[in-house]
């Protein structure tokens, strides 16, 4: 399934729709950002162990379903359908959600979404004696993307992450490095240290995962039972019924979604599914692809407010933040089909070596390498380097539950980057490629060039080459070129043919 395609034809429709803001713009280009992570052996060990574990779990539970490919086809078709008719589905969703007692807010970008959430918190969360307000949060990519926690902190609001991994990241004053397991780069000893250092009542802990999880439970229990406002994302929004859903494991999601008086959900406009019945496909695709489980321990669905059950003030912020920009890219828009399972990063040889931080975005790994530039534009700071953060091996496409052709979009975005970020003046590389194209474009010229091989073989004394001059040194600085052969394939072929003819003649 390896894809080694040529860049697609440039899109006819050049959209100038505004790009997204927030934690999807890389300050530093990937090659520089990845450099220090590559030499961090502890990080590489932690990530290598984690990704290989999830990879094999996923493969095992996927192989249990003999209709897996049909489910992927259905998932892909459903999301394509949503994107093609997004205004209609959004309007339908809005009507149903509002009819069920929910309130919808629309946010063009990160700033607007942050401002809406802040105002809602100020209206619904009491001011504490400290002069600050508190909210609890379910892990959510959308709120990571818009940098909500940082914004709220500046506004006098403390947002407590309740997912264990997010808590580790938050207490460690760190950044998430994986969509599903944000603290994947930390091992148990590091987590123990963070907890003992940052949890006031932690006491003496061992590094046993069960002991650490228990410490997190004690740390958060009181917050769950008393906090008035919670913030969540949503895995799915159902257009037909106005239903929202959150898929989780620990029960922290259920705590946030059901105990507080006010629930504020932030969801990208692309998260919709047309019908409630579509969940029959996505609830099979998502858990198996992400955690390698047949089903995650807890999934909650709510439709507006339910009388006497759960939050009675239910708000939803529908977020654009560059999604319409990505939608305008006909060759890249299927990146919006992503259901954030993270299967692509678990199989990616590049992610496995650099970890998530090198991508400089809320969305790391192969999906991040296409999604971030699509949401913001390749000209935004380091984002033009992200489409190159891949070997194009195609493993990400093979595992994607909604069949996003990530390698093809990577190649397309490399083309966009060349157009946007590189000078039209011929570079050394352009000259070399023009020369190669002249030579390889004609069989006779290629044959003539190959006749030089025996000589080149002698000059290099049959050894591998480990330093080339000029632009080619970029290649040889980290790789060797295999020893040049004595004869070209063409010469070997001609000799074989001649041998065959001789044998035929002798018979």
């Amino acid at each position: 399934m390896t894809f080694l395609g040529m860049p697609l034809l440039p899109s006819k429709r050049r959209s100038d729709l505004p790009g997204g803001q927030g934690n999807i713009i890389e300050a530093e280009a990937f090659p520089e950002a990845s450099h220090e992570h590559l030499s961090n052996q502890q990080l590489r060990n932690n990530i290598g162990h984690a990704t290989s574990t999830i990879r094999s779990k996923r493969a095992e539970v996927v192989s249990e379903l003999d209709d897996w490919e049909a489910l992927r086809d259905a998932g892909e078709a459903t999301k394509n359908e949503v994107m093609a008719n997004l205004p209609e589905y959004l309007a339908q969703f809005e009507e149903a959600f509002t009819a069920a007692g929910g309130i919808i807010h629309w946010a063009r970008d990160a700033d607007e979404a942050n401002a809406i959430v802040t105002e809602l918190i100020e209206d619904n969360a009491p001011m504490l004696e400290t002069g600050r307000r508190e909210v609890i949060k379910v892990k959510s990519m959308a709120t990571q993307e818009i940098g909500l926690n940082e914004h709220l902190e500046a506004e006098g609001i403390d947002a407590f992450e309740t997912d264990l991994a997010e808590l580790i990241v938050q207490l460690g004053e760190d950044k998430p490095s994986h969509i599903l397991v944000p603290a994947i780069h930390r091992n148990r000893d590091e987590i123990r240290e963070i907890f003992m250092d940052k949890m006031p009542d932690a006491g003496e802990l061992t590094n046993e995962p069960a002991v650490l999880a228990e410490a997190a439970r004690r740390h958060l229990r009181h917050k769950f039972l008393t906090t008035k406002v919670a913030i969540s994302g949503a895995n799915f929004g159902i257009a037909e019924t106005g239903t929202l859903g959150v898929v989780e494991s620990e029960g922290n999601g259920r705590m946030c979604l059901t105990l507080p008086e006010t629930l504020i959900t932030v969801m990208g406009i692309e998260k919709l599914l047309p019908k409630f019945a579509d969940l029959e496909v996505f609830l099979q695709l998502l858990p198996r692809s992400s955690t390698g489980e047949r089903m995650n321990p807890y999934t909650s669905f709510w439709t507006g407010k339910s009388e006497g059950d759960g939050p009675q003030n239910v708000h939803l912020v529908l977020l654009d933040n560059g999604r319409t920009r990505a939608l305008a890219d006909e060759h890249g828009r299927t990146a919006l089909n992503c259901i954030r399972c993270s299967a692509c990063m678990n199989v990616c040889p590049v992610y496995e070596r650099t970890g998530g931080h090198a991508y400089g975005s809320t969305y790391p790994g192969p999906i991040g390498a296409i999604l971030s530039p699509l949401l913001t534009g390749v000209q935004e700071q380091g984002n033009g380097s992200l489409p190159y953060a891949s070997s194009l091996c195609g493993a990400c496409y093979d595992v994607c539950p909604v069949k996003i052709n990530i390698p093809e979009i990577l190649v397309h975005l490399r083309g966009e980057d060349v157009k946007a970020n590189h000078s039209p003046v011929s570079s050394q590389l352009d000259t070399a490629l023009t020369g190669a194209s002249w030579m390889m474009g004609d069989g006779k010229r290629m044959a003539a060039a190959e006749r030089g091989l025996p000589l080149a073989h002698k000059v290099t004394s049959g050894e591998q080459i480990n330093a080339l001059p000029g632009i080619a040194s970029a290649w040889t600085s980290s790789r060797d070129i295999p020893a040049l052969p004595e004869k070209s394939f063409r010469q070997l072929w001609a000799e074989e043919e001649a041998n065959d003819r001789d044998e035929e003649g002798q018979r």
Partner: protein
Amino acid sequence: MTDTAREEILARISEALGRRGGGEYVSSSPRTAVPGTGGTAHAESGGVASANTAATAADAGYHHEGTHTGESLIELLIDRLVDYKANIHRADGDPSATIAELIGGHSSVVVPRGLDSSWLAGYSGGVRVDAPGEELSVDELDAQGAVVTASAVAIAQTGTIVLDGSDECGRRAITLVPDHHVCIVRTDDIVDIVPEGISRLDAHAPLTFISGPSATSDIELSRVEGVHGPRTLDVIILSS
């Protein structure tokens, strides 16, 4: 402010989709999504979605019905629940003895209004009934040793039990705050695969899907049962 944002985002989407004279859209009832038809309905100019609804979900190629029935269906559910560290018990007709044994160590338990009261006949501790207008506070729930509920549907293939907020299942908080959940699954409510489970549910009910007790894999991906939800899940499979 948000009204403007709404109009602008919808206009951006129309532009992104190449709909000329953007911003025009139907206010409701877009064409029904048909998983598996493969094709995408390209919006036509003017913004009205094409009305191509050729296939039905049955053409989608994935399974809509499982193959397990009778005892093999129950065995599959048990196998999957055990895999998720739930404790399994079986009862024929009357689960009261099993329930009494499971919750006997707690001085007080909570039950939803509609739970069959005969099921608690063998239990001598305090029973708090959570009913509309007489809801237990969060602190009261926190003081209960266990919660006993029925369930709406159980999906065997994935080991999933669904609670739907009905009188027998109760509101969501009662099965969340106490540390021990005893859940009764009637054999009639067991289905084989996810599509069969979804088709039995009402989207407008508050739904909770439970597959084993609370768990995390956030520390070196080693699974730990019991973080924030109930740490113990006892499932009683009740044959009628």
